[in-house]
């Protein structure tokens, strides 16, 4: 599979333009991200790789508008973004599920802010439950689910919003090794499904192999402050094999940029 979405348009979905982010701490101001510039075009799967504390989660929060940049601009479809971007949705490392709500209720939660139409909400919940393979789990509580099923709920909740931009913060790092293999493959299946509204995905990870396996392009962040030290296009057909010579070359290249 090559990217099923690219080459249709080259429309820029999101652009970070010379973005820096500072936080005030008791001991003074710290710069967490410095002069970050990159863009993601419609249909692209972008991975952001960097060590722990590099500011990856902060970068995602800047992209969905939960945080404002200290310097520079975040442009969404060419316009400067102010406040939360309701066309983006987020998937979290720890799933972000409410324990007292069922699977169906957790998925519906994301729709509350967008529509009051109960029938429409129900239809969307059902549609995305089916897409991620959760039929039969509607009334289960998060505590009853394996990690893999919990993250399917997180994904369905994000997809149900029908966002133009899907942001994922280390979505596989709480999962055991086999479950994460399965969910990475299913994410690619869902992404390549042309019925889906969401074409553009940005995923943060600290695992280089995971980024190479999935993404069209990888942005590499250095640590303290986070700066873009590389922006590499991954020119390999999918599915990608870790033992492939060119895969290993990409690993080495990214590793040396991070070192």
């Amino acid at each position: 599979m090559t990217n099923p979405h690219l080459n249709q348009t080259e429309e820029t979905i999101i652009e970070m333009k010379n973005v820096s982010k500072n936080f005030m701490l008791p001991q003074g101001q710290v710069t967490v991200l410095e002069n970050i510039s990159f863009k993601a075009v419609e249909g692209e799967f972008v991975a952001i790789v960097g060590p722990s504390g590099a500011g990856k989660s902060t970068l995602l929060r800047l992209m969905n508008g939960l945080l404002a940049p200290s310097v520079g601009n975040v442009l969404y479809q060419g316009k400067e973004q102010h406040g939360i971007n309701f066309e983006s949705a987020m998937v979290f490392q720890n799933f972000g599920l409410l324990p007292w709500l069922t699977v169906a209720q957790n998925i519906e939660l994301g729709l509350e802010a967008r529509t009051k139409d109960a029938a429409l909400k129900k239809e969307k919940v059902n549609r995305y439950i089916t897409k991620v393979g959760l039929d039969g789990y509607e009334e289960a509580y998060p505590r009853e689910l394996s990690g893999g099923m919990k993250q399917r709920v997180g994904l369905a909740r994000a997809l149900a919003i029908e966002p133009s931009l899907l942001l994922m913060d280390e979505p596989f790092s709480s999962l055991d090794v086999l479950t994460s293999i399965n969910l990475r493959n299913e994410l690619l299946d869902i992404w390549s499904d042309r019925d889906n509204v969401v074409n553009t995905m940005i995923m943060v990870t600290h695992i280089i192999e995971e980024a190479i396996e999935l993404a069209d392009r990888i942005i590499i962040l250095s640590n303290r402050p986070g700066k873009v030290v590389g922006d590499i296009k991954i020119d390999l057909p999918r599915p990608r094999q870790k033992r492939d010579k060119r895969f290993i070359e990409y690993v080495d290249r990214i590793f040396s940029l991070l070192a």
Partner: protein
Amino acid sequence: MKSSEGDTVPPQSLPEIGISQILGLVELLIGKEGAREDIYRLAGELSMELGETLTVIKAAEMLGLVHTPGGDVVVEAFGTKVIDASIPERKELLREKIELLPVFKKVREFLATEENHEVTREQVSEKLAELIPNEDAESSFSTLVNWGRYAELFGYNDDSQTFYLDTDEDRGE
């Protein structure tokens, strides 16, 4: 996880393994030459304990996805078919295997004979006591619920601790 010697678990017990892990195993193997791997090497590659690796393999074997000649694990044609299928189609395919497992058959039969197609968790545990040794009861129960939901063989409501048959009329809210 409890220590499980994958090969000594009696056939009716259900391994405490999620469907995602099983699918991940088959996907990993399909990427390998001949869709097979030596089990010891596989455990090493995954940094998993051998016992745990065997339990996942056993679960995949119960569903007809792999078989284990000698010390290897090999993907069956059915395994390839499942992985090639779409996410909803996978459920259909696996349902056909899950519903044939003795524990699931027994619970379905039990539900079918009850007037309102509802039974309590306790009643199910009692029924299964004949099939499953005591020490495996807890883990088997969680797999019963999870695979049963995945295959849509029955519903389980944890608030009321009841199983029910997922017929259309029962579905109405």
